[in-house]
């Protein structure tokens, strides 16, 4: 058995187990952490496919940013498991439909043999091949406009999110750091000259 095959089966096993844990864990925080583990192993499998940029981007974006914020929210919510399970039978048909669709799609892809889809041979990879460099070159030359368009969509999303949560309250107190820096002693302290008190006086 080749070493790569061994690595693949290890990553795949952990990934399947972690994914199962995502849907079976009773505690939502445990489920979210299992999802992080699943992402991690998916990144490992992508690395085996020579897609190093995608793998690292998956870890940076999903594990490093999205799931951290997700965990923040899940941890701070007081989630009642029983209430979450209430609509189970009500939502089961819809969920089952989505699951069946996914199984169908995956079996088409994986069982390409039997559905006579052309098998894709992995393209020959030259020694100095750099996935990251090629992706970057494509994004900033051939696909520059779609790329900029996507960034504008993201920017609009950010502005919308800020506008939705921005509330101006009249009674909030905040500091202006520049004012704090500019403060001089004379603004805060007034020296008062007083005659010294005498013992026995008054």
């Amino acid at each position: 058995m080749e070493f790569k095959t061994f690595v693949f089966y290890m990553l795949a096993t952990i990934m399947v187990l972690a994914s199962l844990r995502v849907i079976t864990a009773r505690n939502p925080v445990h489920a979210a952490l299992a999802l992080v583990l699943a992402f991690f192993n998916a990144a490992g499998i992508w690395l085996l496919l020579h897609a190093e940029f995608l793998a690292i981007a998956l870890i940076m974006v999903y594990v490093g940013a999205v799931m951290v914020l997700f965990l923040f929210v899940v941890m701070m919510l007081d989630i009642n498991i029983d209430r979450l399970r209430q609509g189970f039978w009500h939502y089961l048909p819809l969920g089952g439909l989505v699951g069946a669709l996914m199984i169908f799609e995956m079996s088409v892809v994986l069982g390409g043999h039997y559905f006579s889809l052309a098998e894709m041979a992995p393209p020959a990879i030259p020694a100095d091949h750099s996935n990251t460099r090629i992706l970057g070159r494509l994004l900033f030359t051939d696909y520059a406009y779609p790329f900029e368009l996507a960034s504008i969509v993201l920017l609009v999303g950010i502005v919308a999110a800020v506008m939705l949560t921005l509330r101006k309250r009249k009674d909030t107190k905040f500091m202006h750091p520049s004012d704090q820096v500019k403060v001089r002693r004379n603004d805060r302290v007034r020296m008062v000259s007083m005659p010294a008190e005498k013992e026995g006086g008054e």
Partner: protein
Amino acid sequence: MEAQVLHFIQPLLGPLWAWVQPLWPLLWTMMKIVAILAPVVAAVAYLPYFERKVIAYMHVRIGPNRVGPFGLLQPIADALKLVFKEIIVPTKASKALFILGPIMGLAPALVAWAVIPFDTGLVLANIDAGVLYLLAVSSIGVYGIIISGWASNSKYAFIGALRSAAQMVSYEISMGMALIVVLMVSNSLNLTAIVAAQGKGTFAGMGIGLLSWNWLPLLPMFLVYLISGVAETNRAPFDVVEGESEIVAGHMIEYSGMAFALFFLAEYANMILISAMVSIFFLGGWLSPVGFLPDSVWWLMAKISFILFLFLWFRATFPRYRYDQIMRLGWKVFLPLCFVWIVVVGVWMMSPLNIWK
């Protein structure tokens, strides 16, 4: 190197070699990992000792001097004491996650060393996306804090974890932005290539390579990266995590014994890692500062030690930042500065004055 080791090992194992052979790549990589991590771990153990000594001399004290000559056995005594202390798991805490927290804190700091080059070709994994790998791995470090804060089943630990995680996530962004400028001028994501790019230039040709390293032409980014690195490792003056006067001990409050020590080791391992990254990205890695001395791994060690000394010096010098000031510095000062400097360097590189050809 590998052939020599194989030559030695194969006769030693004899017929067993057939069994070992499929796993040989794994074993060989393991050996290299140990060769890198053993010095790192030793440095992590002795950095607290140097911190206590350096700060003590800055305070006109002597520092640890009782255990062994010059107190040199102090870290070993501390470690022994911590190993034998009981690890108390709080009631109703999630026990597996409680143990996982400190491990997740330390592991990324060690994993990142895989791509750190010590000399030309002297690197565990010479990958093309080295910078991305470093960014990805350092973004995982925040999980140690979040997991331990939540698993402690304590309000203090949880609020401390949120504060600390918010701080780390904020400064990671300015660190990444500062790195974008570095990789623009280096034209590569490979750490070895980034160091090699710093060895070229007018000043390097004149024999003063010191002035052609990235720190001079990218001085604002060097400062942003260094200060963000201090904030990222939760060191003074940004050490609000363990600000004794404000919040007990942040996410570490429920930990005792070796589990608590792991957080400390993680902090020092992260310091060494950040120092190595600053040395490689801005201070020319293993390149020699002057033309008549050869490049060698010792220069890298000297640069790492210098940055580590800066960390300790900051701690002895600056008063602690207030939390809102930390957030303001990260989001309203460093991040806009990075954006402006990316444009400035971009224009500079397109102009006839480009020095990075």
